[in-house]
């Protein structure tokens, strides 16, 4: 197991490095000229050159990359060239919104996708199972942002139980209001993530249902339900966990959209604002942060996958 962890950790470091180089190159090589954007349309060539020098853009690429990544390693993810705000300075505050949003949504998605997926598999020939499966199919086709808008129409406009958008200015100092403003975003994100999970849970459980060892468990006196609970679900969880890992990228994208729909001041909204302002230094850091998160969570999921898979564990 230690060897596996080390090898997988090495792979993670290589992936993070490759991602950072990719982001750096795309943002540094492609743009016509950042300095031109900052200097404005009327800037003379000398002024543009001065801006380039100030930003360090006239240094060789490797040196630029080195100083950027050096900053990243010490926790400096970039600074706005427009207003001087820094990613790291805003991160804690923004993450206090995005973190709970993402974690809560995943838990909620698992909370309904697992039981419903098992139900759809076990009762696959009944009308109920078919209906659950069809709902999952429909859920995948629903755009996250539209689900959000529909929930707003129902819960904020029609019955007025919950706020339509926004987050309290004092953040989590007002826990009640903060929680209330996260309810609809949680539901939105959980529904779109959960629909995909539901389908995978269903097919994983279907797979397990046909295994010989499950029949053996029945022969040993387990009822259908207890055999499934004691042996089936553990095994069905293996592919579901790896799907969860693949879903992280979708979750990040979903969070960005949901924050925009509900006007939540999180990491996603910071990114959208900075992209709108074409504030490349910050965008570079933020994108690295988000893809880094995807890669790191993927790493953790892989380890969990390894731990829970009975076949892989016995080989360790």
């Amino acid at each position, binding site marked *: 197991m230690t060897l596996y962890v080390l090898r997988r950790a090495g792979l993670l470091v290589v992936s993070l490095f490759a991602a950072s180089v990719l982001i750096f190159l795309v943002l540094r090589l492609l743009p016509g000229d950042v300095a031109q954007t900052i200097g404005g349309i009327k800037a003379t060539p000398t002024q543009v050159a001065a801006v380039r020098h100030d930003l360090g853009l006239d240094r060789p690429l490797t040196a630029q990359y080195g100083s950027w990544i050096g900053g990243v390693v010490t926790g400096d993810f970039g600074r706005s060239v427009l207003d001087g705000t820094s990613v790291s300075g805003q991160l804690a505050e923004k993450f206090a919104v995005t973190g709970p949003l993402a974690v809560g949504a995943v838990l909620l998605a698992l909370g309904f996708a697992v039981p419903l997926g098992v139900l759809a598999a076990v009762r696959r020939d009944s009308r109920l199972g078919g209906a659950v499966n069809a709902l999952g199919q429909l859920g995948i086709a629903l755009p996250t942002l539209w689900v959000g808008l*529909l929930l707003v129409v129902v819960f904020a406009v029609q019955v007025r139980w919950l706020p339509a958008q926004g987050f309290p200015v004092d953040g989590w100092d007002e826990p009640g209001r903060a929680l209330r403003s996260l309810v609809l975003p949680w539901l939105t994100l959980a529904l779109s993530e959960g629909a995909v999970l539901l389908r995978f849970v269903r097919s994983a459980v279907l797979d397990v249902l046909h295994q010989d060892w499950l029949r053996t468990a029945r022969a040993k006196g387990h009822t259908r339900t207890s055999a499934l609970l004691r042996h089936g679900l553990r095994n069905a969880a293996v592919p579901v966990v790896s799907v969860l890992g693949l879903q992280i990228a979708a979750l990040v994208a979903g969070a960005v959209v949901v924050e925009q729909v509900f006007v939540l001041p999180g990491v996603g909204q910071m990114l959208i604002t900075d992209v709108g302002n074409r504030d490349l230094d910050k965008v570079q850091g933020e*994108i690295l942060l988000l893809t880094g998160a995807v890669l790191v969570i993927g790493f953790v999921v892989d380890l969990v996958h390894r731990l829970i898979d009975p076949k892989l564990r016995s080989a360790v």
Partner: protein
Amino acid sequence: MSVPSSRVLRALLKSRSGFAGSVLVGVLVLSALVSLVWTPYDPTLARPQDSWLLPLSGGHVLGTDRLGRDELSQLLTGARSTLRTALLAAAIAAVVGLALALAAVLVPRWIGAAVVQFTDVLIAFPVLLIAMILTAVYGGSTWTAVTAIGVGAGVNVARVARAEAGRVLGTDYVLAAHAAGSGTWRTVRRHVLPNIAPTLIVQLSLVLSVAVLAEAALSYLGFGTPPPAVSWGRMLHEQQSYITARPLLVIWPGLAVVCSVLGFNLLGDGLREAADARLRVRELQEVPGA
């Protein structure tokens, strides 16, 4: 070659999901085509005297928005940018996916491993983030959206295509072709591509559905095709502020997106079943000969 494809078509229309998918995609394509020659009103023409008309009033089937623009005309025209983005993105995804997949299986092993690793790193970039990088640099446009969706979906296609191509390359008939003196490219053209085509086509129909969703999200965020082009995502964005007054106006564009996505998804399911059926038919035919 023409016989099996007509057989696939028949099998496709016979399966329930294939039929439903074909109908929904047909409606999307038809809306886009019709909007080229006719819409009830000019979709971008603001007529303040007609603002906020309810459905079926003043000659507007689905009503009008704040600026008095006809909702149905906007929906029909929006089908155009949805379809265009989806098709272009799928084309890019096919090229990117095939190139990465073939690069991974055909070159010396250590380069192949690097390509695989590179693909896996790219998969960690959500489509939305790729689109945002390109938008930050160039500003939002049709082609930044198309490129982002195409590349983002293409790396996922690459993963599937790589596995298929690897499988085909390991078969006896490829070995036989090599023994008979067939070069790498000839093998790829004659054996690998035709054999991974069914899988690839199913994957691409799924890319189309992902692209429709992504296009809606991007244009909602303001990173898609800029105005005056009409897109469903931007209609949703524009209507969000008036959701209290006219909730119906956010229902229609969303429904249009859902139907298109569902259409491509079901079409993919149907194609998969049809391709399986074709394989079964071929096997059955081959048995008596053997």
